[in-house]
């Protein structure tokens, strides 16, 4: 009985996801599409929970839907004057029909492959569970991120850094090294100030909670960093604090510190435990906590600065 109810819920959720995705992709206004994308991201969070992946659900809600949605909504608002010109460039009906057929065949191919996946499914869950006690962690996903596949996490933090460099390099010469984002005089409002003053401390506490319990329960530094970045964005939009100029040394140190510490611990591992990013016996948990603690401020700063954009004002 409960299986049938669960399946009915899954069907309802799947239908809702498809409807919202289709609406997002076919609606006229770009700002409406951005809002639809945020709603789509939140529905995907529910899908991830149904797929028994709470860490991914948290990341999708925080980064996939929250931070990306902020970015896209801000860009859609700034690009509003180009809407009319873009409308004129739409391809004709015949072209769209052909493209729709091609995309439908791609979808059908992927769906067919998924339905023909081998059963029983190959899985690494048993190996992960067996190797978990060595790392001292209770959350298998955190163990995979920071111990079994820590090279992926290292490269991911470097990718964030490179994206930030790319965004900063897009500043025009006259504001090179200046403050990102517009001065938020337009957003000044007591309501926003009130919201920022109430939410920001609470958000910081919640972020620290996520960071700390990530070792043994769903959570972790990516979700915590996204919440911290969101709190900073809120406080900056309310006008309570201004974006720092990107030429400031302390800002650059904060952003770089995380990957540097990660690399240093990696080289320490190659010196003491025989392989890059290997952890010496018994030191796994403290080293993992050290990496996470170093990465948290860097990730939060990188995420917030990526949303803020390239420098737009001189100091």
């Amino acid at each position, binding site marked *: 009985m409960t299986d049938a109810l*669960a399946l009915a819920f*899954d069907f309802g959720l*799947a239908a809702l996801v*498809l409807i919202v*995705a*289709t609406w997002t*992709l076919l609606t006229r206004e770009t700002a409406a599409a*951005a809002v639809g*994308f945020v709603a*789509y*991201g939140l529905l*995907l969070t529910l*899908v*991830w929970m149904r*797929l*028994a*992946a709470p*860490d*991914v659900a948290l*990341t999708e809600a925080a*980064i996939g839907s929250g931070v*990306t949605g902020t970015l896209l909504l801000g*860009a*859609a608002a700034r*690009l509003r004057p*180009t809407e009319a*010109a*873009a409308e004129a*460039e739409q*391809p004709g009906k015949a072209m769209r029909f052909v*493209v729709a057929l091609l995309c439908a065949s*791609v*979808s*059908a191919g*992927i769906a067919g492959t*998924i*339905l023909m*996946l081998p059963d029983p*499914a190959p*899985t*690494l*869950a*048993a190996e*992960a569970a067996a190797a978990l006690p060595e790392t001292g962690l209770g959350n*298998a*996903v955190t163990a*995979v991120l920071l111990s079994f*596949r820590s090279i*992926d996490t290292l490269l991911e933090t470097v*990718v*964030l850094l490179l994206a930030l460099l*790319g*965004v900063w390099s*897009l500043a*025009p010469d006259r504001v090179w090294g200046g403050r990102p984002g517009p001065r938020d005089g337009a957003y000044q409002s007591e309501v926003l100030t009130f919201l920022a003053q109430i939410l920001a401390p609470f958000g910081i506490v919640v972020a620290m909670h996520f960071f700390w319990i990530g070792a043994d329960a769903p959570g*972790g530094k990516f979700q915590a960093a996204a919440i911290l970045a969101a709190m900073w964005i809120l406080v900056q939009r309310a006008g309570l604090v201004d974006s720092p100029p990107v030429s400031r040394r302390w800002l650059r140190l904060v952003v770089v510190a995380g990957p540097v510490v990660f690399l240093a611990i990696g080289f320490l591992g190659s010196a003491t435990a025989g392989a890059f990013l290997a952890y010496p016996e018994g030191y796994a948990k403290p080293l993992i906590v050290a990496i996470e603690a170093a990465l948290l401020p860097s990730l939060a700063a990188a*995420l917030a600065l990526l*949303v803020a*954009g*390239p420098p737009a004002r001189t100091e």
Partner: protein
Amino acid sequence: MNGAALFGVIAAALVGLGLYGLIVHPQPLRKILSFNVLGSGVFLIFGVVARRGAGAGMGGDPVPQALVITGIVVAFSATALAVALLLRLFEETGRASLRSDVSNANDEAGGNS
């Protein structure tokens, strides 16, 4: 059909939808949006594979889930860079169009950075 297979089919549909939006929309921001939908569909496929690999006391295989977390963060950084490029293009040419004849016309008319 159980829940995981259903979401697998949905993920395939999302990939097709995202691909359609990516090809058809002329506005680059809509393309970036569709690319994100496409990416989320691919991540869902990973999630379905993870769910099918449940065992050893866990609800899903942790390795694909960790890969998806990495993927979401990387997709965000790619989106941020793409949006920054698009906004810079808009500031320089006053249009958000990828058609080369449009931006070339603006350059020849004397606009420069």
